[in-house]
């Protein structure tokens, strides 16, 4: 059983205790512990159950690569699944639960799967659940969903805050081990602006555990001195708990800073996503030790040799009294030596190499440790924890030579450089035969816009060996990065101690001739329960591409993305395919390096900051008066203003009746308003609109249509001519920005020599539509200026002072009543609104919303962009030839409208529709025609574009596009409804109300 040693633990503050719980059980650790080290210190080896077979699993690693020790962390709204115990800093009050077990971690019913393991090979689900077909949806899928998934979904209502931070530097160094420190120092001393980020809370990486000297001093002292030096340099930014998550085009990188994970409830943001733009990126991301593939290598107590060493040195934790070390390289001897010096037993070191190790092996032997060369593990004994190992000849098939009792197995299959960040943006890898690993190919780095490499690997991430090699390589990378950004490198690398090692020997299966039964228990991917036998099966079944084999077997998927398993897995695949490893290649490395929180990606964009809500100057009044809002782009416009218990429909009817009978007001501030000015403004306007605008007189308004170059109607609105040189174009609410952009595009790309300037002044003005028979009277109460029919005729505008506010008054009508639009500076919009409400009270004034506006315009037969148009409709479809100038040589869309399909007399045309039973047609309903089309669907001959209940007429009214519609007045069409019924409607004129315009002209 694992336990805390009496002394040691360089990261711990042993003077203080921290309380935490695991599966409800109270435990204690120290500041400096990770959750994993604290659990081990409490004798908790078993940390979770595996995904597929529910096998008992303990921690394997000590860092970000951990596949097994995933826990649910926190409670309530702070609960989060799949948190790695190895990277979770312990804090007082931490609450963790293990995952994927039922009913308990100790006794798990799903573990029965393991006994059927031979019946659950790779691709089992694909093969098993495909027949009979209908069973998938109703039987298999629900069952699989029930048993699948790692961890529970978090609860809604995350109370923490998250943020982004944009940062710019010359050189970004990812990784704060000795390589990263030296690269950062070399770049900073050259004068570059440097940012150095480290994913853990500690500088120096694993160097203090592995030992060695720099310039004659212990490496730990050099780390402290270098950090002090960097902290004093004004051109250096240092961040711990900040992981390099991804590298993207043009030197863009993401840093994921866990600001307050270890201090929950503090006022700091929990995570900060650094959006970094760097000239050069140095990846000093270190290396990850590989497991060895032998039977029972997943039993709790079997760990990476480096992790066993880390827990002993960093956290004063022993995994067991007796540790068997099994290795194919010299590095693992360090674990044996370290443990032995701490007074723990090493029953044996099993070195798979026939010729054994070098200087470190000699040191171990001198300590009295038994070393067996050419040997390996045939099988690990134990269930929920290791009880011993059967040793065998690595060259053989696994015949047990001897059983050795032990509580822990420290394994090392060699080291793989962390090449993820190098690879994210296209850096290529080469296979290093001597080290049996992939490392960055210096000839093929990720490249920037000029074809230059912008990522440099450093230290063990570049395949460098001992401290001397790492420091030299890192120094060179730091200097090269600085130089590439224009700095002047100087100085030499510090002298790291050399530690020559005997060559490692690739071992992909232990023993090399392991039979099927052993391979069935030799795990490659702990998280997904993929074994050597599964990958071999995939190869036999024809999965030759490593990407296909990954998806078929799930090797390298899920939260750890195969950090431990990938190389071993593709080595097995290569062997099965009979090809060299480089030919098999790797799967694609994609960001993020380890999972980052979705909240950090959202950043500030939650709750009130989720998205911008645009508000008019009168919004406060609307909110205070019970408006029922609807989104219109990013605006929220009142749909209607219900009173008391009134529903939407009743409110809309009331607003319409009031407006038609007396007086209504509409907040029309959201309408787009664009100024077009210059000597060529008239010519430009004639090109933009289908009708003639250049002849418009100052003081007058004209309704116009705007088409895109394909002839389709894109916007409409009233144009007012302000003076000889200047037009004011009103656009739809949604069109304000896009139409302004459309204008600028034509001016900047096609008509760049025309003297025209535009300005979007949409938000400068608050605009109020005042409509109804009493509209003139109410405005007259607020102004001394003359707005009589003679002074201000229909479709005229003038400047007046209303309620003491300078205003433009446009005599235009969308409601079909006597109607004015008042436009005032936005800062006075609320004052105008209040004045109108007060002055209008004697006429029973009511605000009306967008729905009343829509119904009233439909009663008048006016089209609405987005209802009668959908991007495929041309003005001719809407019988709006009157708005298309025949005198003009050209306008945008003219030639397109002359294409044969556009001029086709069979295009559906706009008509009014009147239901025989007085009901309102369903929106978007189709009118059926005789027969069926090639797909067996009913033929259609028209569709509804707008439909409402008209309170004015007391029945449903609609507009629609109908085949030969205008020539078929009085014909009755049939509109099937979704519930199987049919509504009959007669084709009529689309103007249902005041066809002669007597009211609006009054």
């Amino acid at each position, binding site marked *: 059983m694992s336990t805390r040693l009496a002394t040691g633990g360089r990261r711990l503050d042993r003077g203080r205790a921290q309380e935490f719980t695991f599966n409800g059980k109270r435990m204690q650790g120290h500041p400096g512990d990770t959750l994993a080290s604290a659990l081990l210190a409490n004798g908790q080896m078993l940390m979770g159950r595996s995904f597929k077979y529910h096998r008992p699993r303990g921690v394997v690693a000590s860092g970000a690569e951990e596949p097994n020790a995933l826990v649910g962390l926190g409670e309530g709204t702070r609960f989060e699944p799949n948190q790695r115990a190895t990277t979770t800093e312990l804090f007082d009050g931490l609450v963790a639960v293990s995952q994927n077990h039922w009913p308990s971690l100790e006794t798990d019913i799903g573990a029965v799967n393991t006994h059927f393991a031979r019946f659950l090979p790779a691709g089992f689900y694909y093969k098993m659940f495909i027949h009979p077909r209908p069973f998938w949806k109703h039987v298999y899928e629900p069952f699989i969903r029930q048993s699948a998934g790692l961890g529970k979904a978090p609860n809604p209502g995350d109370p923490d*805050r998250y*943020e*982004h*931070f*944009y*940062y*710019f530097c010359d050189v970004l160094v990812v990784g704060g081990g000795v390589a990263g420190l030296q690269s950062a120092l070399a770049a900073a001393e050259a004068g570059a*602006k440097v940012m150095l980020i480290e994913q853990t809370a500690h500088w120096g990486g694993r160097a203090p555990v592995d030992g060695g000297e720099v310039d004659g001093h212990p490496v730990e002292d050099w780390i402290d001195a270098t950090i002090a030096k960097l902290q004093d340099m*004004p051109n250096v*930014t240092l961040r711990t708990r900040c992981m390099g998550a991804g590298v993207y085009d043009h030197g863009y990188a993401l840093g994921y800073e866990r600001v307050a994970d270890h201090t929950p409830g*503090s*006022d*700091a*943001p929990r995570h*900060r996503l650094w*959006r970094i*733009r760097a000239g050069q990126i140095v990846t000093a991301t270190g290396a990850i030790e590989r497991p060895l593939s032998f039977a029972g290598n997943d039993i709790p107590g079997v760990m990476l040799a480096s992790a066993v060493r880390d827990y002993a040195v960093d956290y004063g934790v022993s995994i067991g009294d007796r540790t068997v070390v099994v290795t194919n390289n010299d590095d693992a001897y360090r674990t044996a030596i370290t443990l032995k010096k701490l007074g723990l037993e090493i029953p044996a070191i099993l070195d798979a190499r026939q010729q054994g190790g070098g200087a470190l092996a000699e040191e171990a032997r001198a300590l009295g440790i038994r070393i067996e060369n050419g040997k390996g593990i045939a099988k690990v004994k134990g269930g929920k924890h290791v009880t011993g190992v059967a040793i065998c000849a690595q060259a053989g098939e696994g015949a047990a030579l001897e059983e050795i009792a032990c509580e822990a197995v420290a394994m090392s299959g060699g080291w793989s450089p962390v090449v993820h960040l190098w690879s994210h943006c296209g850096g290529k890898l080469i296979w290093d035969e001597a080290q049996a690993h992939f490392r960055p190919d210096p000839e093929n780095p990720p490249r920037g816009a000029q074809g230059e490499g912008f990522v440099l690997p450093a230290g063990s991430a570049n395949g460098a060996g001992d401290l001397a090699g790492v420091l030299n390589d890192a120094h060179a990378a730091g200097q090269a990065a600085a130089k590439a950004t224009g700095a002047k490198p100087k100085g030499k690398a510090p002298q790291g101690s050399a530690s020559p090692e005997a060559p490692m020997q690739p071992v992909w299966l232990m023993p090399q001739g392991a039979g099927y039964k052993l391979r069935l228990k030799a795990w490659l991917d702990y998280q997904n329960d993929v074994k050597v036998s599964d990958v071999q099966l995939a190869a036999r079944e024809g999965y030759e591409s490593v990407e296909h084999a990954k998806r078929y077997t799930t090797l390298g998927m899920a939260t750890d993305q195969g950090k431990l398993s990938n190389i071993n897995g593709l080595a097995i695949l290569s062997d099965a395919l009979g090809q060299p490893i480089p030919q098999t290649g790797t799967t694609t490395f994609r960001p993020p390096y380890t999972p980052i929180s979705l909240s950090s990606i959202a*950043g*500030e*964009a939650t709750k*009130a*900051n989720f*998205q*911008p*809500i*645009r*508000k*008019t*100057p009168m919004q406060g009044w609307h909110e205070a008066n019970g408006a029922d809002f609807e989104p219109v782009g*990013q*605006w929220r416009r009142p749909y209607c203003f219900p009173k008391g218990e009134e529903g939407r429909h009743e409110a809309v009817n009331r607003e319409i009746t009031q407006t038609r009978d007396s007086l209504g007001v509409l907040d029309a501030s959201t309408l787009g308003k664009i*100024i077009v*000015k*210059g*000597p060529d403004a008239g010519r430009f306007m004639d090109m933009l609109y289908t009708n003639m605008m250049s002849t418009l007189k100052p003081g007058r308004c004209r309704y116009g249509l705007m088409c895109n170059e394909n002839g389709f109607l894109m916007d409409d609105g009233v144009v007012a001519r302000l003076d000889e040189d200047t037009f004011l174009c009103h656009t739809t609410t949604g069109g304000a920005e896009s139409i302004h952009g459309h204008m600028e595009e034509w001016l900047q790309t096609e008509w760049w020599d025309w*003297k025209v*300037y*535009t*300005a979007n*002044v*949409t*938000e*400068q*003005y608050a605009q109020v539509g005042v409509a109804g028979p009493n509209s003139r009277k109410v405005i007259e109460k607020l102004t001394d200026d003359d707005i009589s029919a003679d002074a201000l005729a229909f479709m005229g505008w003038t400047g007046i002072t209303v309620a*003491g*506010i300078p205003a433009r008054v446009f005599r235009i009508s969308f409601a079909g009543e006597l109607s004015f639009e008042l436009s005032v*500076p*936005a*800062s*006075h919009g*609320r*004052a105008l609104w209040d004045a109108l409400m007060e002055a209008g009270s004697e006429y029973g004034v009511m605000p009306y919303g967008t729905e009343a506006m829509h119904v009233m315009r439909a009663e008048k037969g006016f089209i609405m962009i987005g209802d009668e148009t959908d991007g495929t409709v041309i003005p001719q479809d809407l019988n709006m030839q009157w708005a298309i100038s025949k005198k003009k040589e050209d306008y945008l869309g003219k030639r397109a409208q002359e294409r044969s399909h556009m001029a086709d007399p069979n295009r559906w045309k706009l008509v009014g529709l009147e239901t025989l039973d007085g009901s309102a047609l369903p929106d978007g309903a189709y009118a059926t025609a005789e027969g069926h089309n090639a797909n067996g669907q009913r033929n259609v001959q028209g569709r509804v574009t707008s439909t409402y209940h008209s309170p004015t007429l007391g029945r449903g009214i609609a507009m629609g596009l109908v085949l030969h519609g205008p020539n078929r007045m009085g014909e009755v069409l049939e509109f099937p409804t979704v519930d199987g019924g049919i509504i009959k409607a007669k084709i009529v004129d689309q103007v249902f109300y005041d066809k002669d315009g007597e009211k609006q002209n009054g």
Partner: protein
Amino acid sequence: MAEPVTALNGARFEGIATIEDAGPTGMITLRGDLASKEVKAAVKKAVGLDIPGQRAALGGKETAALWMSPDELLLMCPYDKVAETIATLDAALEGQHFLAVNVSDARSFLRISGGGAREVLAKLCPVDLSPDAFAPGMFRRTRMAQVPAAFWLDEGGTFHLVCFRSVGEYAFNLLKTAALSGGEVGVYG
């Protein structure tokens, strides 16, 4: 006429930086040939300032000239002097091709000051806000979270930011969130 009411109506927040509504301010969009001597003279006459260089801001007593694009400036003056200032521009540029239009009410205008001002903006805008990269007198049109915004830095270390009026509340709330205490990043010395 009643007093003008801004979208933020005097809002203010103090955190790692102070965020405040700068109140009603006169703003004029001037489009024209910025290289011409006529425009240069007109701007001088109207706000007493030269034409700012690319991405630059020039500030005077109660006025400012801000570079918006190769043919556009944003001129600032007291709110009640806008009509007068536009009249000055119109008169000075008579016969020229130009556009001078009042946009005072179309914008929200905010001040961000205090020790955390740079960090607050760097949380929301993809701009290098380190002191060596963004110096007083620099002006930047950019994106602030999900809306367009523009700001400049004065000699006293205060940022002046404009965005559209309709999103004034959103902008203020963004800046406030970024300025909450505990959010210090600590990278600008």
